[in-house]
């Protein structure tokens, strides 16, 4: 995915991406607001993955850009500190300010808030850094991150951006502020290499095909870790730690993790290269992994089994028509909610 030695910057959303947050009903929202840092729960595997990414020598920054109100900063920062997660930038939404200024649409609207925040964060990052973004399927993260990727790559100019942001429902002042940031950006480069979308609502993966292959919908963070492992970002030991955290703290079984891996292989989001890399580093993980040989054998068996089957052709990274996406599916929240993952 990335050239060796290039700095890496991670952009994370918070609610439903890092934190297990419910805000579909007023009661859920009220509970979320009242929760202490200790009560807040992270999405299975997210903390282990972030610790692994944050501790990597090539990691230049870990930025959080969240739609949570600025009033929650203290408790959210405390939660991230408790989880041992690195934080270099932390942007929250000025909801009270929006309310007082009568910008009611801004309370729900995401493009006009997140896109300029991402561009600001880009300005604070090393110009030669590659970026990996993490969002979820509850709102418009895939759309925003992909639009951001095209802006920093120079594929979307100021006029196009104005048109897209306006169509997405952003306030004119936000559009103007965003477009004004474009000349300050470093030389255009295709720096956003991966966009992970945590499928909190179990949205069909086909719905993300329109954003191209760099957008990877994942059903859990073990899948994200597997992709990053194949990309050469994570080591085998990091991958095992993410999996183990999910087994120890979130009730995951090895079979669920193996099924998750099989799903990635079937979707063409992972190849047998990952298995080869894993074999090369297997000696590093045996000590960490209980019943290491049995578990590794099962992973290997399934990789070989799936690899032997006929594969589809990988999708090309085609230009994204953001206006067509907005026309087809307006950016609105999906109401249908799936219960939290079962424990076995």
């Amino acid at each position, binding site marked *: 995915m990335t050239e060796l030695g290039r700095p890496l910057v991670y952009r994370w959303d918070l609610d439903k991406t890092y934190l297990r947050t419910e805000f579909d009903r007023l009661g859920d929202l009220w509970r979320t607001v009242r929760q202490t840092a200790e009560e807040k729960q992270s999405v299975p595997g997210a903390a282990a993955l972030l610790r692994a990414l944050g501790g990597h020598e090539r990691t230049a920054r870990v930025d959080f850009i969240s739609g949570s109100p600025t009033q929650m900063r203290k408790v959210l920062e405390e939660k991230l500190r408790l989880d041992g997660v690195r934080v270099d930038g932390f942007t929250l939404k000025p909801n009270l300010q929006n309310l007082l200024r009568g910008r009611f649409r801004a309370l729900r609207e995401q493009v006009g808030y997140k896109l300029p925040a991402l561009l600001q964060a880009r300005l604070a990052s090393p110009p030669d850094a590659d970026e990996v973004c993490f969002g979820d399927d509850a709102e418009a993260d895939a759309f925003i991150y992909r639009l951001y990727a095209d802006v920093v790559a120079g594929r979307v100019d100021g006029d196009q951006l104005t048109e897209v942001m306006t169509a997405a429902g952003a306030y004119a002042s936000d559009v103007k502020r965003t477009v004004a940031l474009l000349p300050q950006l470093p030389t255009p480069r295709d720096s956003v290499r991966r966009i992970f979308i945590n499928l909190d609502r179990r949205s069909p993966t086909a719905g993300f095909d329109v954003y191209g292959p760099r957008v990877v919908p994942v059903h859990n963070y073990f899948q994200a870790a597997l992709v990053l492992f194949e990309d050469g970002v994570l080591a085998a030991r990091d991958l095992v730690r993410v999996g183990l955290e999910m087994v120890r703290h979130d009730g*995951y079984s090895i079979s669920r993790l193996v099924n998750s891996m099989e799903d990635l292989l079937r979707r063409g989001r992972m190849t047998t290269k990952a298995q080869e890399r894993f074999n090369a580093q297997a000696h590093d993980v045996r000590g960490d992994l209980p019943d290491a040989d049995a578990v590794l054998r099962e992973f290997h068996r399934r990789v070989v089994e799936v690899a032997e089957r006929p594969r589809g052709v990988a999708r090309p990274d085609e230009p994204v028509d953001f206006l067509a996406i907005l026309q087809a599916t307006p950016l609105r929240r999906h109401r249908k909610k799936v219960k939290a993952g079962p424990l076995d």
Partner: protein
Amino acid sequence: MVTLALDAMGGDHAPTETLAGAADLSLDKNAPQIILVGDERRINETLAGLRHNPERLRVEHTPDVIAMDAEPRTALDTFPNASVAVAARLVAEGRAQAMVSAGNTGAVILACSRHWKRLEGVRRCALAAVLPTERRRGLKDDPFSLMLDVGATLEASPQDLVAFAVMGSAYAARISKNASPRVALLSNGTEPKKGRPEIVAAHKILLEHPALQFIGNVEGVDLPRGTADVVVTDGFTGNVVLKMLEGISETVMELGRYAYRESMLWRVGLLFLAGGIRQLRQITDWQEYGGAPILGFESLCIKAHGRSGRRAIANALRVANKAVRTDLVGTMKEGLAKARALQEQGDAAASSTDPVLEGTR
């Protein structure tokens, strides 16, 4: 964790509806692991458009499918790796504990009999179906009684009928949570001597069975009343009864539609009854209970209706999951062992009083 094999390609609406059913169930809190057996490319394409939890799903690739109208034996001989055969094989190999198929009924039964062992004491397997009744039963207040066989074994011996009674009783106890289901033989009269010789003989054996609550014979009129919780008959009779009940149900609905079209007054009357009709439809809706269990093997297969949609498939998978979790097969084994012991005692008593045998000793 329970693992089920789903014949993803079997059924009139496969793989779209079979996969949608599995996808829906995968989102359940206590979903089992489901192995989707079929063409991986089609499975992947379909799953990509469905909300699902892949942590609960696996795929076993096989490109071959048996058509709904194919001759089962020839089709299975020609396609030994057809999805239904592979699903049965996965169960035989212990990689899954039960299977579900909405495919060609003959092929499903044949695949099971080719790959699975029969339970000790079972000569022929039985296909069971649930019938909506007036009476409610069990912890779940279940409105259904179970009838078996409805088509797997056209001619049943007294021993077959006894085995069906034991298996049906175990199924009702485990799946309907009915601790002591009332078992009856379907006959042309309630008297013990009424019916064909095999019914009379089975009646005699069942009366002695210590673990069954055998209530004797029931007639056709008792089926909708729900006099018995488990109705035992041969596959020929059972199939005729089942099809007749389906026909009546369809005719009643058609009459309702006719009444709605014909007269404004009837239309108003039907509108008043709409809530009740909806409830009645829900009770009698076969998609609610998923499918018919094939009983008699050391593993369980739920044969879903060929026309099954996603709801019926999800419910069939739920029933299979429940059957495995509650050890239905183990309960059937125990019941059959008791029936065997009873039969042996009867045989021993008969031989000890037989003057001819006495003379040969």
